[in-house]
Structure formats: C-alpha cells, structure tokens
C-alpha cells in the first residue's frame, strides 16, 4: 500500500503551549486511520495544520509526496473535509449547498450534477433536496454536512467527529457511508470520542494527548497494551460499605469499583474469573441480577493512557 499522507515531526506552538509536539505518522491508501484523544489533545490542530489552515512551527506535511501549502490547489482538489461544526449556508437549500461546495472543485456542470446525485444518494438525502438547513433534524444536518464534503469524490477524507449529537440510525448511516467511500478508493482520517466507532471503523488508531502520540496500532494490538485482562460486571442493586470492604479483601487479584448499582471487577492476571467471583458473591450473600464478563475495550486502553481526570 502506498503512502497518501506523511506527517513528519509536526510541531505547533502557541505562546506558552505546544498544541502538537513532534508528531509523525502516515496514512496509507484505502486506510481508515483513527485519531483519538481527549479534548485539547491536539487532534483538530493537527487536522487544521494538514489542511494548511493553521501555520505550524516546524515539521513537514506531504500529500502524495508533495508539500502541502495554501496554494497547493492540485492537492486540495483531492481533499474532502467534514468539519465538526456543520458548515453549510442557512440561506441555501440542501441541493444548493451541495451544488455550491461541489462547484468549488468540479467545473463541468454535468459531472458536478452526477456527483451531487451520488452524494445525495450516499447520505440518504433524496427526500430533502429542497429543504433549508433549519428545517432539518440534527442527524440530517450532519448528513448534509457530509454530503457537502464528499460530493466531489475526494481521495483523501478528513472526518472531524462527524457523529456528534446524532441518533443511532443516523450514526449507523454515516459509518456505513464512510465504509462505502473507502471501498470506492478513499483514504480517511477519522477523529472521534466514541471508542466503539473507532474500533468498528478504523484499520489503525493513534491515541494522542497533549500533542503527542501515546500509542498507535490496530484496535486489537492497542487492547493488548492495557494491564487489564478481564472485566467482570455484576448488577448489584444494594451493597453496603461494609460488604464492599469485605469483598475487596476476598478479591486479591483484581480492583473493584461500585457505581450506580454496578459492580466492576478488573482482573490483571488472565481470563475466566467469572465463576470465581460468583462463588465469592454467593458466599458473602450478595445478591445480583446479572453477571457477565468482558474483554478490555478500547475505552479501557484510552482511559489508562490518558487518565481519568476531567478535561476542559
């Protein structure tokens, strides 16, 4: 697979803060690369630097081996961006919005019209061509936002949290659409806060914080990073402080958390601890409604790497 995008030692400094700190990564052809990180980790700044919107302090950004710059029109022609904020004109209809943005890339009218139809079809906006943005629901607005970014059939796509505040149906539609775009030959950089989305969609994931890469790899390889080997969850409606302390004494090979009627025991020494935990709960006469085991998720990896403290 050939490299589409190469970011080398990218650094973006503000007065006192390094928003991006010596960041290097590549994106291969037909690949979906996830950029994960908490708020303020530098994901959007990285994206804006790649798009030549932001001036960066040092490093280089190459697309198809060529240096990216504000006047690199041939490279821009191949890029599509779906911004986190919905970027459409309130005064234009769904069709006119897509037509306007597509027209910035495609000059031939017939080609543009055919591309617009494809974008409308892919995002399921067939019935809303004449609607104005304010008449659309949140999910439809997000789909329009995507249609405006992909109508010109770009080869390199940037999705910046495209599924924020949409219902599960719309989210599913969006994720399927991105898969289709990859099948049609696009390479994608995808930023999100939803770990399950990244796990479902991305071939490779980069977890970053404070402008630096903390870990990268396939979803499976990332999961092996965490020290947690198994999580057993039990729905326990009532658990006194006293019993919780006793339970902590019984379970010596795991850490216990009890929140909102849910007991979570994380084990760090292999799998298949559920039977052992059931025995302990019965012995201690702790009643539970449901108990189940889970392998560590990307979310566990993410929290372990970036910490659990709240961010801005």
């Amino acid at each position: 697979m050939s490299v589409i995008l190469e970011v080398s030692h990218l650094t973006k400094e503000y007065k006192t803060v390094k928003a991006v700190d010596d960041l290097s990564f590549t994106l291969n052809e037909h690949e979906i690369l996830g950029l994960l990180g908490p708020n303020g980790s530098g994901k959007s700044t990285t994206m804006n630097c790649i798009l030549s919107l932001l001036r960066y302090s040092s490093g280089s950004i190459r697309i198809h081996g060529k240096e990216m710059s504000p006047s690199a029109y041939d490279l821009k022609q191949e890029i599509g961006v779906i911004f986190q904020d919905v970027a459409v004109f309130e005064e234009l209809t769904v069709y006119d919005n897509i037509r306007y943005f597509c027209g910035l890339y495609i000059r031939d009218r017939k080609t543009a019209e055919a591309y617009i139809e494809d974008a409308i079809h892919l995002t399921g906006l067939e019935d809303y061509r004449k609607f104005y943005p304010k008449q659309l629901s949140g999910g439809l607005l997000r789909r329009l936002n995507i249609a405006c970014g992909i109508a010109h059939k770009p080869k390199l796509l940037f999705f910046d949290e495209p599924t924020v505040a949409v219902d599960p149906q719309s989210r599913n539609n969006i994720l399927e659409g991105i898969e289709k775009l990859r099948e049609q030959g696009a390479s994608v950089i995808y930023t999100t806060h939803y770990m399950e989305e990244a796990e479902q969609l991305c071939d490779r994931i980069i977890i970053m914080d404070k402008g630096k890469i903390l870990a990268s790899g396939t979803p499976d390889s990332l999961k092996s990073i965490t020290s947690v080997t198994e999580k057993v969850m039990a729905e326990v409606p009532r658990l006194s402080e006293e019993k919780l302390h006793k339970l902590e004494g019984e379970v010596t090979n795991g850490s216990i958390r009890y929140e909102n009627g849910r007991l979570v025991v994380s084990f760090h020494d292999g799998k298949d601890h559920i039977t052992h935990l059931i025995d302990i709960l019965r012995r201690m006469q702790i009643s539970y409604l449901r108990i189940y085991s889970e392998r560590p998720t990307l979310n566990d990896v993410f929290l372990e790497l970036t910490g659990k403290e709240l961010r801005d």
Partner: protein
Amino acid sequence: MFLHNYRYSLVVLLRNKGLVFWTLAFPVIMALLFHMSFAGIDDAERFSAIEVAVVDDDAYQNQVIFARAMEELSKSEDAVLHLHYADSTEAEELLNNGEVTAVISIQKREPVVRVLSSGIQETIVQSVVEEIRCDSEVISDLAKEEILAEIGEDGTDLDFERIFTDISKAVLSVKSKVNNLNQKEYSFVMIEYESLIAMTCLYSGLLSMTLMNMHQANLSAVGKRSTVAPARRGAVLAGAMCAALTVQLITLMMLYAVLLLIVKADFGNDIGKILLLSLSGSLAGLTLGAAVSVLVRTGENAKMTVLLSIVMSGCFCSGMMGIVMKNIIDKHLPFINWINPAAMITDGLYALYYYGAVDRYWFDLASILLFSVVMTAVSIGGLRRRQYDSM
C-alpha cells in the same frame, strides 16, 4: 468560479432577512420617515424671518464681510433673519424678553451666537452664522493672497482694479451661495436626504462584510470549507463582492425611486452625476466592509460594531445631524473629513446641488475612488495566502 460564486453569493445575500432589512428596507423606511416628519418644515421656516439681535459695536463694524452678509440676509423679501441692531445690554434684554431668538456679537474677531434654548430656529441661526463665518474667512484669505501676489510680481504698483475684480467675483460667488439660504434649494430636508444617501452607500459594507466573513476560516465553519477548496481566493471573493455590489445597486434604485417618485426630492439636473457619485460611494462602502472584515481580528459581532461605528460617526461628522457639524469638523479637524467617505459623498452632493462646483464634485469622486482602491489593497494584502496562527 467567478460566476459560480457570484450566483450563490447573490442568493445568500437576498435570502438573509436581517441583511435585506438593514441594507434594502432601512434606507427606504428612513427616507419615508424623513418625508413624513419634515415635510413642510422648510416652507414653515421660509416665510417667517427669525428675529435676531446684533450687537452693533466697533468689533462688529470691523468685520465688514460678515456685517454685509448679515445685512444682505435681512434685506430680501423672503429674508431668513430680521435684525435688531442694539448695544450689548439692549440685545441681552431683547433675548431675555423673548423678543429675539438669538444675540449675535463679535468677540475676538469671531462671531458668537447666544441663545437661551435649543430648537429649530436657534439651529438655523447657528447654521447661518457658521456658514457666513466660513465664507468670510475664505474671502479674507483670498484678498490677502491676491495682494501678496501683486506685491510679489513687481514690487510696488498694485493693480487694485484686478484685485477688486477677483475679490468681487469671489464675494459674488459667496453672496449667491449665502443667498441660496433664502431659496427653496437650501433645504434642511434635502441635507437629511443627502446624508441618507451617504449612509446607504456606506451600509453596503454590511453586505461585503457578511460575505467576507463567510470566506474566512477563522470566522465560520463555512469559511473553513471554502478555504480548503482548490478555488482561487481572488475569483471567489471577486464573485462575492460583485454580488454585494448588485444588491447595493438594487438598494440604490429603490432609494432613488422613493426619493424621486414618492418623496419628490428635487436633485436638480445632475441626476447622472449624483448616481455616479452614489455608485462610487457604494464601492467605498463595500471595500470598507471588506477591509474591516480582514483587519479587525475579532469575532463577527465585534467586526459589525466597528463597521457600524465607522459608518455612523462618519455620517454624523458629514452632517447627518445638521450641517453645522460638518462645518465645525471642516474648520477644526479637517483631516477627519479628508478620510471620511461619508463626508466625501455629501460634499460631492453639495458641490453639485448648492455650489454648482463641478471641479469640487470631480475631486470628491476621485477621493472616493482613491479611498476604495486603498481599502481594496488593504483587504487583498491581508487575505493573500493567509494562514492562521489560531482558530
């Protein structure tokens, strides 16, 4: 790319209800309101001369040009002022008894107007005196220049006849200008309409600013999307600016239709030149809006506040709240009106309408175009290959 942007920018502007109100409807509403509020005000004021006391002392008599101008104004059939010559004590008594509206005296060679309250009559007296004072200064300076030039040419023999002829011409021109105060043409309402035209021209800045903001990545998500596209900024922005100019032309057409057909404002015989001036003024407004959008590096609301402050203070300095303000600025802070596009527009209109001074009109037109060129250069310089430090 130009046509593509032109077409969609036009649609975006015409479907923006707030913008349509402020740029298309507001000037028309203002014109109609002026018409309804001030209709007949000129007629009412024209037929009753304002009673004024003049302190007739040595200082007053020494200001020959001023005294003659005042005399002229009180002579004709439809005189603006009715003068009562008195000493300072009598004049004060007349004022305090309400027999006169104002007392005019000369102090330190400058005319001083004393009134007891503010009102239309008081404002007219202030305006008239200020106008005569300005013109007297011009004539005085001209006389000095003429005499000095004569002395400089051949030493001693002064051609008094020629000096007299030149100064007489100037005096006659001023006299005819002052006399206009008595005529229908010098109208309080017309001055308001002319200021309104200037304001409407500069309000076009709202159109260009709206479109420019839409194409700047640090101001809107749409701006980001537009900036990452491979379209050349020049073509995109030129299309947008032409769309703004088109909407502005529609505005001007509507405003002039109302002024000429409904309000029946009398713009004389130079309507072509007036339209050319309005078009140039609109260009100044458009480029001013673009420059503010590029140069003021804050949010959209702050940019709008800056633009409206510039436009409204410009209109104020150019006479929207009364011609006296323009004269005061011209006298004490002339550089403000040299760079004030509203003053350039109103001055061009006065040049055509009151003074019949075509040279002055062309000078004003050239100044407006120069202003537009500077604003365009500033905008292009600010936008060219712009990358942002932060978003």
